[in-house]
């Protein structure tokens, strides 16, 4: 079987449309984030308490809410988690009152209302504000560091232009991913940040394969415009791009469908990331390279004109 044999799409000609598409996607994302009043951070970053409980019998969310509220947690968020028996109880706070933490007090209230054996605690995540802000700082640092290091690596292995173009594409991917996260209502947790960093890795991977081919074709020194070289390189690597995205997507789809509810948001972010990463290596990274090249050429021309005039 052979897909995209001798493909000759002129990707660069359509780059303006791709810019608009990207701008619209990013715009929708930013609008969603703005409308939601910022991104929704999980307890990992804000500090707070999350308790996932499974009841032996079907449980009404309103009943559960009233029990939790009576225990003194008026601001608690109750969320059904894959069924009528399983719930997430989310509290903004993490503190000890009279030697009892939030978790103990919530569980005491549940035991009093539904019996000690009426439920099972599936998961507890309680993070103090200090740890939360530490994790926040670390996450931002990790994302920035991955930028800087890959930029350095690419500048070293290729040219600085390639590095800049790759980082532009990566930022593009991250912006769209954050927008999507906000739109779908996924919380930002440690897992989400890991997924985003993985997307950064995947998107770079994809971009580099195209860039590697561009570099190779540039070395052949054909008498052709830069744009043509870019188009040729993308077309030549197109079968690989599609096939690798395909195999990665089917595995992620398996993870999304069968991996269970805890991993599902993580898989969802990765699926979107692979799609965006593939799109961006063709429609963002390579055009960015072209724009940088043309900008350099225009400047050189202007300088020559300036020199000639002087």
């Amino acid at each position, binding site marked *: 079987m052979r897909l995209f044999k001798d493909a000759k799409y002129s990707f660069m000609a359509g780059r303006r449309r791709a810019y608009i598409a990207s701008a619209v996607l990013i715009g929708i994302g930013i609008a969603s984030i703005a409308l939601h009043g910022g991104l929704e951070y999980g307890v990992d970053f804000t500090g707070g308490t999350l308790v996932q409980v499974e009841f032996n019998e079907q449980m009404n969310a309103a009943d559960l809410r009233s029990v939790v509220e009576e225990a003194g947690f008026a601001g608690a968020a109750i969320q059904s988690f894959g069924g009528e028996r399983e719930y997430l109880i989310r509290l903004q706070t993490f503190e000890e009152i009279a030697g009892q933490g939030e978790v103990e007090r919530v569980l005491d209230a549940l035991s009093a209302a539904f019996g000690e054996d009426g439920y099972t605690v599936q998961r507890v995540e309680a993070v103090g504000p200090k740890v939360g802000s530490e994790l926040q700082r670390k996450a931002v640092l990790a994302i920035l560091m991955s930028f800087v290091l890959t930029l350095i690596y690419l500048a070293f292995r290729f040219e600085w232009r390639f590095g800049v173009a790759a980082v532009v594409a990566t930022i593009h991917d991250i912006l769209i991913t954050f927008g999507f996260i906000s739109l779908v209502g996924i919380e930002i947790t440690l897992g989400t940040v890991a997924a985003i960093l993985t997307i950064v890795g995947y998107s770079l991977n994809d971009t580099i394969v195209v860039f590697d081919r561009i570099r190779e074709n540039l070395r052949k020194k054909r008498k052709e415009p830069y744009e043509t070289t870019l188009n040729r390189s993308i077309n030549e690597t197109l079968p690989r791009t599609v096939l690798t995205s*395909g195999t990665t997507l089917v595995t992620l789809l398996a993870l999304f469908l069968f991996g269970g509810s805890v991993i599902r948001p993580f898989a969802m972010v990765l699926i979107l990331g692979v799609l965006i990463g593939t799109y961006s290596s063709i429609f963002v990274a390579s055009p960015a390279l072209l724009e940088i090249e043309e900008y350099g050429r225009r400047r050189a021309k202007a300088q020559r004109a300036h020199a000639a005039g002087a």
Partner: protein
Amino acid sequence: MFSTVRARIILIAVLLLFCGWALLPKEGPTGERESALKLGLDLQGGMHLAVEIDDPDGSLDAAAKADAIARTLTTIRNRINEFGVREPTIQRVGAERIVVELAGIDDPERAKSIVERTAFLEFKIVRAGEEFRRALPRIDRIIVREIGAENLEAVPILEPETPAGLPELLQGADSANAEQDADAAADTATSGAGPDTATSGAGPDTAATGAGPDTTTAETGEQELRPLTALLLESGQVGQFLVSEQDIPTAERYLALEAVRDAIPRGSELKWGVEPIAGGADSYRTLYVLEDEPLLTGEDLADAGPAARDPTFNQPYVPFETTRRGARKFERGTSRHVGDLMAIVLDNKVQSAPVIRQTLGRRAQIEMGTGSSLQEAQDLALVLRAGALPQPIRIVEERSVGPSLGADSVRQGKFAFAIGIIAVLVLMVAYYRVAGVMAVIALGVFVVLLLGGLAGLGATLTLPGIAGIILSIGMAVDANVLIFERIREELEDGKTPRTAVDTGFEAALSAIVDANLTTLITAIILFQFGTGPVRGFAVTLVIGILASFFTAIYVTRTLFMIYLDRRAAGAPINI
């Protein structure tokens, strides 16, 4: 190196055998066979706790803190060893934090209380309390001065049934009268026409002098405001007061005042009882007046337990044995106080206050309240044996996963893994035919290397780690795809199969190296940044990248060599 096919096959076989061996179930320390892949807390269920020294006012300097952390680490280790958890992780992270990871425990809340408890034990004599009673009016005045009379309104002033001691009652009657006077004075003041003003005429100046009598009434008012006394009910027991549960926060606020602490008679201190006492519809706590010097502390204990239940009173107790030095101290202390009450104070709360019937020596027991369970008594014995924490600690992070959720995750992860592999297999064989089969064989080798590598390095498999494995299966074929596509291109350019394969591998190499290295960079950053599960994800990514690099370049190349050798000379290759 290893340029001959035979040598390559041997190398691959050795690696496979090694990884396969690493994956075999091993005899665990308990004798049972365990899976070689160590499962993370999120997969086998368990608890992760991060604790720090509780030092809200920053009174500890760095050296004291470091010392406290080191001693806390040892104590927590001892306690967990006594508690009996398989392969616990108890380690210091950074300068100020201790991380405790306990796998496969079924009662995380209990484990938490064992870690968290300071377990600072003291035996103190209960004072008669007369001295404290005498100091009460002064303490009340101090509270009024510190907090301000206007802020005390929530507290009911002078309930008639309050301090029921005879002198207090008399005084209470007095102050009730005085209060009426004060109210009257206040009324006149608000009406704006005090008797003084009436006689000496109106005017701003006179208004100022008119403040004179107001001040005096305020003073008498101050005497009548009895914020603390109003909260204390007589218990009928020596040196013990009762405070209604709802008043406890208020009482604690008063007692926390610096000036109030200074006003408590020398040698005495106040401690709350641990058990609520039901009285009618209300529930009360005991406030004990204790000698501040303990007769004995937990440091003097040599052993504690096993806990048992007193058959007559149905009350659990923990027998203990003191050290030789402790025994002398205890004898000396208790011999002077036969007939007095001795409070057993654990973490600043009075557990119980039994009567000293005779001089106590080496052996004695801690009586827990009737509301305690035998398990609580056993846990107390455990923490007493392991020793007290040098400073109270505070939990800054708690994560736990129930065993059933973890088992679900493993089952679902395995299933997703199988489906993912089958899907990739179908895609590759459909697309590349014979070469696709080679890629699939390489993928099989990849999976064994990845899992064997994880097991061999003793890495922990976490839920995001499973996701990482599944993701890396999708990505592992990337290198093969790059190579195969390149070979196809070379064949189209009219090269012979052998040269096409050689050039294909060489030309694809730079892209494979660059792509893998950048992913490796992000994986290493993830490792640095992450804790627990995320770290597990990073580890699988790193091993996955290395394994896929090896299988794509080396294993597939070997398979191609075999394929090229076996094919009839000049026949086309199926790619």
